[in-house]
């Protein structure tokens, strides 16, 4: 509980660095790392949903909204004002008239319309389509039935009207880099993918595939006095051990830490102070296929939750680099119920439930997993002996992450272990368990329960935030009882940040995604 209050306190502060109350220094180079693989997928940020790519995109691009880590919600970025009408379905955006693309042209409503039309190009399958689909007529464009999204209307150069298909906060849909606004004219050119142009605080200089992206300050950025730094270099470093050396060697300013290094850095007086941590909106769980006979019984699913000593795993194996999951919604979710307790470790109870369900001798199932250290094989290996104690045998099926994604989408599993985004919008997160959500979308356990649907629909219709949160809490508790998954943990993202880099935001959607205009380096940086 203590840890949680720290997090909440951390979030209350706008910026971790602001506590130091220093005057940001202008100039210098920010040396960030991209830790999730050995390359960037593409310079066309619309084509990629990997967290890795959004790291550079946060410096290069801007979307309609941005995530405000201090407020814990998305806020308008390219709009000065948003007017809601039509029973919540019509959003009118008063756009900034001081946002310039890196080619010097001013952004207008046309660029936004062009961008959203592009994302809905059905021949390209841009992953951002899932967000833009919330706009009326977008799906028709995707299916090739229309040329332009009917729900988008340009009132004038700096006023845009957007009709939605359902009553949601569009902020949750349009804050990621997947919906970055491109310049209509340049974005259509072939050269764009070699030399992308955006609205962000830094403009593109070079990309060495597999090595780094270099960006430099965009002088006409719309926030006065920002960005601070002259240059941003995002180096790709997929190997944790190599990153560790580079960070200790002061060659990089940020490094994402795995559990082992989290412990090592905490124990090292020189490095302890560099640690920044945040509860991310990802829930790690084992999904159970209700089509597999034993898992169709709620008692079996609960028994699994009782049988696994999750705290021990988090403590010993994950090295406390995670928060114990109670149900689906994460700690930072507005609908998180602080009074709820997680399933306790109780093998006897598990055994009893199994007996009641007709499996006194246990059973065997196949568990599909990736090699991921936080939600993959090591966890599975630790769980196997625990389940063994209650008579449940596990056969491990190891696949690559890309294959696992496919397995999960198609339901071709008995059980799988995964990490799934469970925020920031609690409604969207719980919607994944609504029976109207198809399995490939995000209802991976093919969860269908009319009672649950009812609670969720009700929550979606209400305008009262308090009431809505109450209903969402109820839905969350419902999931706890039904236990469609083994609730394992919510990720604690940990990053090491060199002492000379200031202004790091504790972004719970992904800690590595930093608004670079807020970052600055003092003159103790080796890169100046």
């Amino acid at each position, binding site marked *: 509980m203590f840890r949680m209050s720290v997090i909440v306190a951390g979030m209350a502060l706008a910026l971790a660095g602001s506590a130091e109350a220093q005057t940001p220094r202008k100039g210098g180079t920010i040396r960030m790392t991209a830790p999730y*693989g*050995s*390359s960037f*997928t*593409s310079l*066309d940020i619309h*084509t*990629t*949903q990997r967290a890795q790519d959004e790291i550079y995109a946060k410096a290069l691009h801007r979307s309609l909204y941005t995530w405000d880590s201090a407020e814990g919600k998305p806020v308008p970025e390219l709009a000065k004002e948003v007017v809601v009408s039509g029973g919540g379905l019509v959003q009118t955006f008063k756009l900034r008239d001081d946002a310039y693309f890196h080619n010097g042209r001013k952004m207008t409503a046309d660029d936004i319309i062009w961008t959203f039309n592009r994302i809905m190009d*059905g*021949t*390209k*399958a*841009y*992953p951002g*389509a*899932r967000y833009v689909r919330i706009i009326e007529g977008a799906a028709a464009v*995707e*299916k*090739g039935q229309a040329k332009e999204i009917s729900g988008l209307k340009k009132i004038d150069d700096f006023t845009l009207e957007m009709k939605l298909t359902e009553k949601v906060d569009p902020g949750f849909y349009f804050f990621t880099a997947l919906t970055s606004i491109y310049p209509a004219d340049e974005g259509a050119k072939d050269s764009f*993918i070699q030399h992308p142009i955006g609205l962000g605080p830094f403009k593109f200089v070079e990309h*060495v*595939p*597999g*090595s*780094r992206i270099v960006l430099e300050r965009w002088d006409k950025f719309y926030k006065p006095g920002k960005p601070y730094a002259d240059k941003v270099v995002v*180096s*790709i*470093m*997929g*190997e944790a*051990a*190599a990153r560790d*050396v*580079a960070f*200790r*060697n002061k*060659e990089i300013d940020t490094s994402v830490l795995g559990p082992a290094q989290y412990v090592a850095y905490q124990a090292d007086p020189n490095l302890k102070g560099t640690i920044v941590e945040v509860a991310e909106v990802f829930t790690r769980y084992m999904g159970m296929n209700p089509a597999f006979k034993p898992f169709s019984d709620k008692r079996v699913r609960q028994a699994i939750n009782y049988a696994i000593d999750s705290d021990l795993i988090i403590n010993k194996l994950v090295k406390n680099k995670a928060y114990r999951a109670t149900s689906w919604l994460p700690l930072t979710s507005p609908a998180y119920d602080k009074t709820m307790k997680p399933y306790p470790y109780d093998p006897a109870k598990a055994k009893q439930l199994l007996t009641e369900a007709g499996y006194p001798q246990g059973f065997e199932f196949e568990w599909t997993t990736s090699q991921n250290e936080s939600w993959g094989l090591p966890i599975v290996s630790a769980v196997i002996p625990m389940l063994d104690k209650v008579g449940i045998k596990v056969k491990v099926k190891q696949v*690559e*992450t*890309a*294959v696992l*994604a*496919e397995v*999960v*989408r198609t339901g071709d599993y008995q059980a799988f272990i995964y990490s799934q985004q469970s925020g920031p919008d609690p409604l969207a997160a719980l919607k994944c368990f609504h029976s109207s959500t198809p399995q*490939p*979308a*995000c209802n991976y356990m093919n969860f269908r329960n009319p009672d649950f649907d009812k609670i969720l629909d009700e929550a979606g219709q209400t305008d009262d935030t308090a009431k809505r949160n109450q209903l969402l809490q109820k839905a969350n508790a419902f999931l706890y009882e039904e236990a469609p998954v083994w609730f394992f943990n919510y990720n604690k993202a940990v990053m090491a940040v060199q002492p000379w880099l200031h202004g790091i935001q504790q972004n719970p959607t992904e800690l590595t995604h930093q608004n670079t205009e807020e970052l600055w380096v003092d003159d103790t940086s080796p890169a100046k």
Partner: protein
Amino acid sequence: MLSFLIRRLLQTIPTVLAVVLLVFVLFSVVPGSIASTISDDVDPQVELRLKQQLGLNDPIYVRFGNYIGKLAIGDFGTSFRTREPVTSMIAKRAWPTLQLIFTAMAFSVLLGVPLGFVAALRPGGLVDSAAMIVAVTGLSIAKFWLGLVIMYVFALKLGWLPSFGYGDGGLKHLLLPALTLGVSPMALFARTTRAAVLEIMTADFVRTARSKGMSETRVVKWHVMRNALVIILTTVGLQFGGLMGQAVVVEKLFSWPGIGSLLVDSVLQRDIPAVQGSILVVVLAFLAINLLVDLLYGVIDPRIRYA
């Protein structure tokens, strides 16, 4: 010379074709769909259209025909993942890999060959035993492990060289990965050279040289060296293949932006056109280097004539 070159080039065509076929067939049975490499939320209709567009619904022989046809004009297809032409993706990665491989090769030849010579001068002696222990040790260590140790020692403990990075700041970023990559070929060259020298030392012309009243050092310098180079050159040519394989590991470890890391990335993300392209380019490079080696024989060994 020219006609030899042309003949050799023609000879490699079937090999290249077979490699293309092999890789193509191999990856036509790969599990996972194109959609999973792009997004985890793709409309089934969109996926279908995408597959049609990429010709993935055609029978395999049609696809192979199309692939070969495009290859002939230097088109390796379009990456599933980045939607960039694979050709340009590879082009950007070629130079870093070449740098790495040739530096590692230079290092291993310049160190390994003299080591082998010195060892062979006194077979069974102290230098020989030490050199061969070093060599067999170098061959027996897991590469990524060695790289990590090298990284810790030279970058962190000694602070001599940067632990990663590419291209900025000249050669110093290249040294640690090249060192890691070069250790086992160095060991191999030391052993091969030693064996070659010992074998040549028993040749009649060496006895002739000795009968001239030459010191052993001169015998080696004037008569053994060049003959040994012929044998060493063969090993060097073949070793380029091993080096390219190991480069995959080293590039991943040192975040080196070469074809190796592109290959691993593409394999892990099921980007089949990129995998096929990378493998093919590696094979072509290997064949080209060995063609070069064949030409070098002509320089070293006067008996070989390219008539």
